[in-house]
């Protein structure tokens, strides 16, 4: 498999602010690579350097074997770009802007196909200034695809989508990779990265704090399993057959274990013997979101790169945060 994107020791400073502090990664052809990270982590900076919009301060970058700083027409013909911010040609219609773009590329996609792909059939004759925010984002996606690119950059492509539109765009992106296209995607949504990406890198404060498949990220597949339940009346943590920890925020207790089967057997055996019911009993592995919060630090504090400190705060407040974030995402 050839390499579509190769980045080595990439750095970028804006004046005295160092936004990207030495990042190395590569993306294989046909792969979906997700950059995950809090606001201000440096995602857009990296993506826009690869797209040729910004000049790097140090390091080497190759996109489809070319240096994006050279800004060659040949490279631009082969990449599709969805910028983080939308923009319009307000007085033209959806169909017209797409048709216009087909003349810009040597080997464009079919306008009708692209319109259908992003689900804008009903708006094809609508002037762009009349589109809703989410429709505008779908058009952005369409504009990124119209040139029939080999490599597609998607900077937060589904921000502002309603849940069903988000699912629909996941299908589109999955279809792209089944066509052999390479995708670099940034997102704040864990489920999106989990669903789409072959590989995920978590970036925080301009450095990669973890990289791997969504399943293995941050040692998730080896991480302790959480067994949770509420204490039955009259039982304290000390009565339990295995060590447990009360979780004040969630109002229940947690057992962290590497051997969930054995632990469950002891716990439930003990409970059944005493004719006790364990309310709210659940067994969970840390979600990608838990791992992310641990790695990236407090999401409200964009610069947190101190993983150990972040881990400590997550332990204390993680549960509520996960709940909030899940609510916000759905």
């Amino acid at each position, binding site marked *: 498999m050839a390499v579509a994107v190769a980045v080595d020791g990439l750095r970028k400073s804006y004046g005295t602010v160092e936004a990207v502090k030495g990042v190395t990664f590569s993306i294989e052809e046909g792969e979906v690579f997700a950059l995950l990270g809090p606001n201000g982590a440096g995602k857009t900076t990296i993506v826009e350097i690869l797209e040729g919009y910004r000049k790097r301060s140090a390091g080497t970058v190759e996109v489809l074997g070319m240096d994006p700083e050279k800004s060659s027409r040949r490279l631009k013909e082969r*990449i599709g770009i969805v*910028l983080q911010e939308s923009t319009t040609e307000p*007085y033209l219609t959806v169909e*017209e802007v797409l048709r*216009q*773009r087909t003349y810009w590329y040597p080997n464009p996609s079919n306008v009708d196909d692209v319109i259908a792909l992003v689900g804008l059939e009903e708006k094809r004759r609508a002037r762009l200034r009349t589109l809703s925010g989410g429709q505008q984002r779908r058009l952005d996606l369409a504009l990124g695809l119209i040139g029939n690119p080999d490599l597609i950059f998607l900077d937060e492509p589904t921000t502002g989508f309603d849940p069903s539109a988000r699912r629909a765009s996941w299908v589109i992106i999955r279809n792209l990779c089944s066509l052999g296209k390479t995708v670099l995607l940034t997102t704040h949504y864990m489920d999106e990265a989990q669903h789409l990406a072959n590989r995920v890198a978590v970036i925080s404060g301009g450095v990669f704090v973890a990289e791997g498949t969504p399943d293995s990220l941050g040692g998730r597949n080896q991480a302790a399993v959480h067994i949770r339940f509420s204490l039955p009346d009259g039982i304290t943590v000390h009565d339990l057959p295995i060590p447990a920890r009360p979780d004040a925020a969630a109002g229940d207790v947690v057992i962290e274990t590497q051997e969930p089967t054995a632990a469950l057997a002891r716990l439930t055996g003990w409970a059944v013997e005493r004719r006790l019911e364990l309310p709210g009993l659940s067994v969970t592995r840390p979600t990608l979101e838990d791992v992310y919060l641990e790695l990236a630090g407090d999401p409200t504090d964009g610069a947190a790169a101190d993983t150990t400190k972040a881990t400590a705060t997550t332990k204390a407040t993680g549960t509520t945060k996960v709940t909030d974030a899940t609510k916000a995402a759905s």
Partner: protein
Amino acid sequence: MKNDLELLGRQVGWEQRSYWRNPAAAGFSFVFPILIMVIFATTNGNGKIAELGNISYTQYYIPAIVAFGIMGVTFTNLAITVTFKREAGTLKRVRGAPLPSWIYLGGLIGNSIVVGILLTALVIAFGIIAYGVSIPGNIAALVVTLAVGAACFCAMGLAVTTVVPNADAAPAIVNLVFFPLLFISGTFFPISKGSVLTKIAGVFPVRHFITGTFAAFDPHAHSSLRGGDLLVMVGWGAVAMLVANRRFRWEASTT
């Protein structure tokens, strides 16, 4: 190259389509000059201008409004449109596409020129039919003068975007540069030759565009092509082109 020219033609077509769908822009650069012409021609009725050999006011206004219209669709319209597109991120997006930048800008410039030609034809036809203005004596001289003027003011329009910080400021800054020059250059009323204002105006290309265009219409002029006027416009245009080439921004500033 043939493909690029074809692409340029298409871009002009798209810009035209977009232009006529935007009533505000079309109104400002198209309807405004005609409105001004009608108002001035009506208020000054049958007056004559002694200093210019007793020609009628309308004989003066028509060329002045032709020049004004062209400056509006090139300088003002281009400067504001390009700034808006820059601030809205449209130019940035174009930079990420394989369309060569010059073709994109060429589409915007071509659009201005098409509108300028239509406007010129309309104003002249209106002058001839409604006010009995004499037909430009030397059509070739008129075309050359208008072409040089249009090129100069397109370049100036692109150059001025480099000092406009954001979209909100664009109309204010552009008109602040443009309107005082229009006034002292005799666009709306003839100005007397030796005055200080005229000397100041003589430094800038607006005055020369007006006198150059007027000459092509002037029934009393010896030569209808004024080389001096053309030279000043070429000079300003070249400087503007240099500035635009050096300092043109494709993205909204982040500061």
